């Protein structure tokens, strides 16, 4: 056990910190608006041009060949500097690692560098109206026609698909196949004929996700990731990344935790009036630490040759409940102010509403508890 950063890691941290200090923009408009999307894309491009788009990728593919500890350090400095959420997170955190594992060299070269600087903005396309928690119930078909798949059907809950250039998802390529058999993992440009994207407005009134309709949409076979009919295994790898390390590095919660501590100190009257508040805030801050420690531990295990197993599901539950706890504590401090559209309160209330989605998306926490019970603890199905 050695819980110190190496001098090289400390130097890397200093390097990221310096760059961020110079370059992080002020608060951008919400990325679920057109104006905000453009501003965020410009920021992503700046990151990409300076080699910060996705630091863990090889330099040749737009990254800087960092290891996972460096990635965690990067994330910490990124959010500590007040930089915005990653616009292309479904690309860089979910599809990216999947491409690394299952993509051909040609696919990697084609997609990753453009992804790293957000030349291609990616959205996921898993869910369908009848296939949410039960993802194996996918019905959207992609029949083979020579060197193309022809897609028909509908996807939904595709985050930021309104602005995206591409989607990745699972499609039923074998006619009449059942459940997780006969599915293929396809990458589909959204500007193809036959595609209709219908925005869906979320709680805050902005169109944060979309439905996508496919009517005889022709996609080249080259756009398949992994083997035909083997899409489920590829998707499970993506889901693993999603639940696991990448999607929710601790840095975001640490940034929220710092804001919570500041809020607590700025409202001494709230603490005086409700003596239990200190406990509640301290518990949320301590849990944030626990989440960071746990992530470093997971990275240690990966670096020692381990793999992410079903215990990744505990992580999904933990961060989603942590995010709620942080925001609920903030709303309790704000009290009567919490509902108001003032700059301070609005940010917490928006974050609180966003946190509602945490226990639902990326596999609901009920599904995660099933996975923990069945695959980690070995309880009968």
């Amino acid at each position, binding site marked *: 056990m050695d819980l110190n950063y190496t001098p090289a890691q400390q130097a890397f941290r200093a390097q990221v910190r310096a760059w961020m200090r110079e370059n992080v923009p002020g608060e951008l408009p919400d990325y679920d608006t057109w104006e905000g999307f453009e501003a965020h894309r410009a920021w992503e491009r700046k990151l990409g041009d300076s080699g910060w788009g996705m630091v863990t990728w090889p330099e040749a593919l737009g990254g800087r060949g960092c290891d996972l500890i460096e990635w965690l350090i990067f994330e910490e400095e990124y959010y500590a500097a007040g930089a915005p959420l990653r616009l292309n997170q479904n690309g860089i955190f979910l599809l990216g690692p999947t491409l690394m594992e299952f993509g051909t060299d040609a696919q990697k070269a084609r997609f990753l560098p453009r992804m790293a600087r957000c030349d291609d903005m990616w959205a996921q396309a898993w869910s369908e109206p009848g296939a949410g928690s039960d993802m194996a119930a996918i019905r959207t078909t992609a029949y083979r026609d020579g060197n193309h798949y022809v897609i028909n059907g509908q996807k*939904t809950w595709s985050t930021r698909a309104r602005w995206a250039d591409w989607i990745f998802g699972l499609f039923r390529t074998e006619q009449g196949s059942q459940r997780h058999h006969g599915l293929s993992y396809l990458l589909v440009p959204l500007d193809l004929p036959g595609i209709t994207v219908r925005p869906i407005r979320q*709680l805050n009134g902005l169109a944060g996700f979309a439905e996508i309709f496919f009517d005889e949409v022709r996609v080249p076979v080259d756009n398949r990731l992994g083997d035909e009919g083997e899409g489920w295994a590829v998707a499970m790898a993506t889901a693993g990344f999603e639940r696991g390390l990448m999607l929710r590095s601790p840095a975001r919660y640490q940034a929220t935790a710092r804001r919570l501590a500041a809020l607590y100190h700025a409202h001494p009257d709230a603490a005086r009036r409700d003596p239990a508040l200190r406990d509640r805030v301290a518990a949320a801050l301590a849990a944030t630490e626990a989440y960071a420690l746990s992530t470093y531990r997971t990275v240690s295990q990966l670096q020692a040759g381990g793999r992410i197993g079903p215990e990744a599901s505990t992580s999904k539950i933990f961060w989603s409940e942590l995010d709620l706890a942080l925001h609920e504590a903030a709303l309790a401090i704000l009290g009567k102010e919490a*509902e108001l559209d003032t700059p301070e309160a609005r940010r917490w209330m928006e974050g609180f509403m966003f946190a509602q989605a945490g226990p639902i998306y990326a596999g609901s926490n009920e599904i995660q508890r099933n996975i923990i019970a069945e695959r980690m603890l070995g309880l009968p199905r």
Partner: protein
Amino acid sequence: MDFTYTQDQKSFRDAVRAAFMVEATPDVVREGWEHASGVAPALEALIAEQGLTALSVPEVFGGLGLSDTDWALLTQEFGYYAVPDALLTTSYPAACLIRELPDAANRQQAWLPALSEGRLSVAVGHPLSPLVGDADSADLLLLWHEDEVHAVWRADVDITPVASVDPSRRLCRVSWNPSSASRVADAGAGRELWQRLADRMALAIAGEQLGLTQRVLDLAIDYTAQRKQFGKPIGSFQAVKHLLADVAVKGEFAKPVFNRAAYALEHGHPNAGAYVSHARLACGDAAWLAARNGIQVHGAIGYTWECDLQIFMKRIWALESAWGDAAYHKARVADWVLADGAAGPGVTFA
């Protein structure tokens, strides 16, 4: 010892419910979001037609003279249908306050019939709710100043609306200058008036929270009974059942607490304030859990603007700290239950 409401009370509640069921649909609530008043014109018309502005005005002034327990039933309907605030922030508290003003026969004569007939809109401001609800559409404001009651016409105040997470709410910062001319009750009389008013408002919110709890539960039951995953309705999965059962338990045990508070307030029980705070905490907890578990069983659809669930969740979030935040109500409850012999057998009721 009788916790049941009279047939009259229930009939009146049923009549209001029937009207809201038709006229205060989610679409009508959404329509109100686009109007300055927060209320859709059709619903505003209904409120006027049904004489709902007259409920708390004494009969001698042309009102219905409803009691606190009468209101206890109605506020649950306001919550269930997420009827926009206006009635509960203006005519209800205003009538309660005006009818109890000391030495104010002239003012009562001038204001109460007008209030009753919907010709006069009166907003109310108090430190527990420093932003005044619907002040921007009020004619007159009754405002707290060092326990005094002041009556100020809208022309004499500056109003800045502040949006709420719940688009139905119309909260306003009000700045004004108290003067002896505007004072309608001194601090001696005002202290008690304001405390009773604040308790009434807290109780009204508790009632809304109960109604909201039930509505979210009903929406969740409807949705989970028809939505299928893994080949069966998701409402048949134990995890979903238990999330909703937990809400039902909280709601069920908040009801009698709420009823006791209404009864105590109506009868001037010395512990009424603590009972109201207990109700606010119990009903608020139930509503908060309903929102959390409600969206959880809805899944992604519950996170959308189109899904009506948002109407009720946002009201729940907005009301959480209205007319006394958790710190205020917890302190009153703790002072009461931890006082010697204050709670328990033979003391619970007098």
